[in-house]
């Protein structure tokens, strides 16, 4: 197979970028998208060019490192897969493929197709955990958790933190990412204890970091490689409003004392 690639090239965060065209040929339909880019890079290295930088690591769809915006869609045209699990058989030979980085204010470009997603770490640091220390915890079977709950928590927990939801959103909102973490933990008895504080802290951090508001278009769910449902956003909003009301009530009680 052969392709014309139009790729975003940008040296670093300060310099301006542009789309540059490249041709690749002799690509096997069984090659992954990254193996196709590897071929391009080998070609560039051997001809004295500058290889294209892109984020990738596990190449089996689970680490969440890869982050390409292909033909206007995060992770390309196939539903439910990450870029690394995309194969060239999903494209037509001879076609032109546009490749860009995630576009979001909170994700500045580091180099070419690589963006800085440390904002996601920052959100988790704000409260995306259960405050337990190593040791001193009860036996794992002390608290039964209904299977349906546990399964629902798992569905939310399967978020890989790739950022496709942000890239897909016209407002670059991180609601699905946070909603998934909030839902995962608040549905389990272990995480419920801190649920109120957690949602307030994570949402506050999200606002600080420059993510936009929910666009209510559900593009995040449509493009999520792990199929995380927007129901998680609803669950987060419910938790958030409840927490806000609760904290207002607390304030009034305190002031009246």
């Amino acid at each position, binding site marked *: 197979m052969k392709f014309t690639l139009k790729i975003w090239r940008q040296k670093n965060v300060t310099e301006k970028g542009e789309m540059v065209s490249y041709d690749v040929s002799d690509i096997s339909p069984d*090659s992954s998208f990254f193996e196709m880019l590897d071929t391009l890079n080998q070609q560039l290295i*051997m001809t004295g060019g500058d290889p294209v930088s892109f984020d990738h690591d596990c190449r089996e769809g689970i680490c969440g490192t890869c982050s390409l915006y292909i033909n206007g869609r995060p992770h390309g045209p196939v539903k439910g897969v990450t870029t690394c699990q995309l194969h060239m058989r999903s494209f037509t030979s001879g076609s032109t493929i546009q490749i860009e980085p995630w576009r979001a204010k909170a994700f500045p470009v580091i*180099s070419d197709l690589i963006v800085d997603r440390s904002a996601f770490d920052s959100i988790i640091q704000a409260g995306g*955990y259960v405050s337990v220390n190593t040791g001193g*915890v009860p036996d*794992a079977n002390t608290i039964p958790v209904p*299977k349906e709950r*546990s399964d629902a928590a798992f569905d939310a*927990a399967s978020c890989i933190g790739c950022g496709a939801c942000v890239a897909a959103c016209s407002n670059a909102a991180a609601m699905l990412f946070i909603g998934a973490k909030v839902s995962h933990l608040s549905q389990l008895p272990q995480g419920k204890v801190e649920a109120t504080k957690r949602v307030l802290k994570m949402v506050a951090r999200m606002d600080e970091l420059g993510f936009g508001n929910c666009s209510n278009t559900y593009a995040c769910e449509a493009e999520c490689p792990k199929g995380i449902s927007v129901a998680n956003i609803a669950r987060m909003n419910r938790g958030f409003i409840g927490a806000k009301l609760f904290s207002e009530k607390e304030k009034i009680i305190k002031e009246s004392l």
Partner: protein
Amino acid sequence: MTRLNAGIPEGPLAGKWTAYKSGCKLVNPSNKRKLDIIVIGTGLAGASAAASLGELGYKVKVFCYQDTPRRAHSIAAQGGINAAKNYPNDGDSAYRLFYDTIKGGDYRAREANVYRLAEVSNQIIDLCVAQGVPFARDYGGLLANRSFGGAQVSRTFYARGQTGQQLLLGAYSALSRQIAAGNVTLFNRRDVLDTVLVDGKARGIIARNLVTGEIERHAAHAVVLANGGYGNVFFLSTNAMGSNVTPAWSAYKKGAMFANPSFTQIHPTCIPVHGDAQSKLTLMSESLRNDGRIWVPARKKDVEKLRAQSIKPSDIPEGDRDYYLERRYPAFGNLVPRDVASRAAKERCDAGFGVGRTGVAVYLDFADAIKRKGHDTIDALYGNLFQMYEQIVAESPYETPMMIYPAVHYTMGGLWVDYNLMTTIPGLYAIGECNFSDHGANRLGASALMQGLADGYFVLPYTIGNYLAAEIHTPRFDTAAPEFTVAAEAVSDRLNQMKNSGGKESVDHFHRRLGKIMWEYCGMARNDAGLTEALYLITELRHEYSRGVRIPGALDEYNPELEKACRVADFIELGELMVRDAQQRKESCGGHFREEYQTSEGEALRNDEKFAFVAGWEYRGREVAAGLHREELQFNEIKLSQRSYK
């Protein structure tokens, strides 16, 4: 002559760890704040260690090459994590888990370390549940267990096919909490390129900021390596693209011994290679062997027809199929340990019975299981794996058998550590896959996650205190000290030299060549002549590499080719050591199969009299062969026997 003293506590096996904990030195909380610890790697071992040490009050700096700690390759582990909870009431105990691990490792692991591992396994499950890890549960709301990788008890806890991911997210959340608390500082997108010693003790590291190219110096009272395995020495493996040996290798060159480097696990159930552009291999969880049956055609005629695509696998009648694992190992059948299953697949393919376009694959067939259990049950058990397979191969395992072939998956060898998990350099620890200690010559399924978390959560936090108790008067280090300057300059010189060597070929070109040599001569089957040949080829490759490799871009910018160049330089040197190790071990054990040493039935033939030892290799210079030290293994609890799965 040996310098390898494991420092195993006295007393009966089951009481050693308790006795150690009762007797080890402690550091009081106000002193912990004055002590710095560097942790390299944020997989299960590194993240759990950094979080736990932060909770204790130490000042921790944690490094990873990924953009965030949550992406470390532990995330890819599918199957599960073992623990001796005995929830299913099927007779499990810490002793049985210990026994199975030693036996599965073909009696090349240290009894005391493995017993401790089995002992703390239950605490891991408790902690992970408390962190919110969504393990699979039964309808009663309690945790589900499954049998895994040939174990005769159900001791494996799992979270669908994503156990590693969920456990890592648990450790990552604990780590994030400590980062927020200010006890841990995260350095992401960093490659650790050297270990710094001051007066013989590990006191810091030299790192390269992968975004800016800056060479950084970091000092600490102790350094913990948790940089994972080195399977990428084979170029094609199930490891992540960035997985590398560099931090451990830099420690080796500074005096930490490297143990059993040739012990590599070749996993039997991976998706076969599709062609020359292949960049990595994908594992299909071992749990598939619980229900899938492995076979190849019994008649060459059918093999040819399959390759010509004139028949489908389902056209071959039952009687003309060779279920070779069931045939050779009636007691364990498709559930024999990984090393045995891998070798058997290679044997059939080498004999010309392999299937697929390349002839280097065997079938893993679910037709019987679907008939017996129903489509829905199989879907609930393996749905996500089937999907993953279909995505890569474009065939549905519901309709046609999967094709699989062994691939490099895990490295049992690693830095030599004592009972404290300390290397031969004082103050330098190695935990998780990057040490050698618990899996002997073959790792059992669902034991890697257990070991990584055991080391990080429950072992290192005790043993490192025992060392640091004597360091409370040591002030924080100044990275302007000459030791740091020398190391930083050496790293810069090395990078400069590599960058400006002006070679013709790319890094990948050399890496692929190294991989082919290793796979051919130091892979599933090894022999003396092949290993001698490999040694010659690798030395030649190393010289060629040092004469020049083509690295575009600059040193002070984001430069993935430069990153790879450093990693591959170390892989080439490591490859040489692996071959030497394989050559000196004149026996077959676990994943190390020497063709000269096999039973008449083609099974691995150990030589306990001469080789019941850990081979610790000491670096003696680039052009000098490494020195071999032996740690004799004492088996007081377990009687050594020939593994039999027949």
